[in-house]
């Protein structure tokens, strides 16, 4: 049965500017069928997390964070300090206590 989960989400490299300049926060996601009534799955994936973040945290200019249903180029997504590419990217099923980080790459020197 679907149930709510708690996560840590983190931002770095300037991505935090789109989220009230808060670099780290704990969030609680409701049971997924509460938030997406049509959703057949029982677990949240990063894909739905991004939608939830857009609805609940992203104040303005979503195009600076999102592109299509994923993050824009130049943002590295980390699942518990590991590149999300090693975790199925958008399809990764979130677990209670996971830390998901969104790090914008820097280019200055």
């Amino acid at each position, binding site marked *: 049965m679907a149930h709510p989960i708690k996560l840590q989400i983190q931002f770095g490299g300037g991505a935090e500017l789109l989220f009230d300049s808060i670099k780290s926060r704990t969030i609680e996601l409701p049971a997924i069928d509460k938030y997406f009534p049509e959703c057949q799955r029982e677990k949240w994936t990063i894909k739905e997390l991004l939608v939830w973040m857009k609805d609940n945290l992203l104040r303005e200019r979503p195009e600076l964070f999102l592109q299509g249903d994923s993050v824009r180029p130049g943002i590295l997504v980390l699942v518990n300090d590991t590149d999300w590419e090693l975790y199925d990217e958008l399809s990764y099923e979130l677990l209670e206590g996971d830390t998901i980080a969104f790090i914008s790459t820097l280019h200055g*020197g």
Partner: protein
Amino acid sequence: MDVIQRLEQEIAELKDTLQMKEQELVEIKQKFLQINENSTENTKVRIGGLPKWAIERYSRQILLPDIGVQGQGRLMAARVLIVGAGGLGCPASAYLAGAGVGEIGIIDYDEVDVTNIHRQILHRERDQNLSKAQSAANSLRSINSKIKITPYSIDINPSNGLEIAKNYDLILDCTDNVPTRYMLNDISVLTGIPLISGSALKMEGQLTIYGYRGKGGDEKEQTHIGPCYRCIFPRPPPPETVGSCSAQGVAGPIPGVIGVLQALEAIKLLVGHPHTQLLVQRMLLFDGGDSTFRTVKLRPRSPACEICSDEPTITKLLDYEVVCQSQAKEKDLDLHILQSENRISAKELAKSLNAKERHLLVDVRSEAEFNMCNIDGAVNYPLEKLREKQFEELMEKIRSCTSYVTFVCRRGNDSQLAAERVLDALVGPDRSRVRDLTGGLHAWARHVDIDFPVY
């Protein structure tokens, strides 16, 4: 005033002479060093392959099991190319010169500016307007006269990049822009030379090694180990999301930390540490704001990578400014958006303000910049926040007054964007009240108020 001009002229001439003499000395020393190295006298005092002077000079690092005599020998035989003589390149090259890396090439097209000095530690006040590559080379030579330093006061680009790089064993990416970073990655993959990539902005820095190749022993020679830049970032970021040190600021020690760590990774790599001990397929994230370092695991080399996979679609260098839709040299931007009737020069604005004509002066720079310096009476509406509520608030102000509305920014680009946004929302005669300060506060400082800070 004549005295000042004469002295400035004399100093400039003396600087040129000094530089010529230094160059002459370097060349003579290098010849002498070569003769000395080849003499039988010298080989007698070689210990474990190193001459006496080298054992003495580098003893503090030779003592480390991590380096040792063999490692020192490898450093002295190594050739490292440093791209960018700025906040990262200065500390990185200083430590590599100190460590006795045999040959250091340093590239930078730019000249030393006073705003560089808080972080670009090889440049001194007296080096202003000197080529950064030359200034860095001078400092590096004063650190270590036993090594070869090659300054390149040029723009590294797709037509010269491979040619320059192939004389080196390792490249350090110490640049400040996206197109050059993609180009250096492609140079690294095409030549098989590993790339140590550092970056820094505001209070944060990032560091990793791209395009690493096995070095024999436990690592199969020349095979790819770990990703390249394109494996992780196949698409460049949208230009509007990319920050720069000159626009957003940087604390001096931030690139200092990252540049020094680039040098450390370079030393370990050259000495022959295995990839498991290097930042290969790992990225170091440094946040100076809360004093944290973390190392995250990156994806491996991508089988679909456009350049480093077994079937690459990119086989030569590209036009990176086109690919990345942004410029390698940030200073060139010069927008012409507004019609001439919606623009006002610095002198005209000063005249109008002096004649007590009323202007709503809207400064669209960031709050931090506005707090640093501003024209008396200006109000601050940062362009990045000039949307929705903020924008409506400003429009209300504009509609309810009859004075001129003059937009101001640093160089006169953002002010046009802001004025355009406002013009689009206005109809009729109100439009004629809106203008932007041509050339921005730089022009204001040049033509009206010489005491106004130029940054």
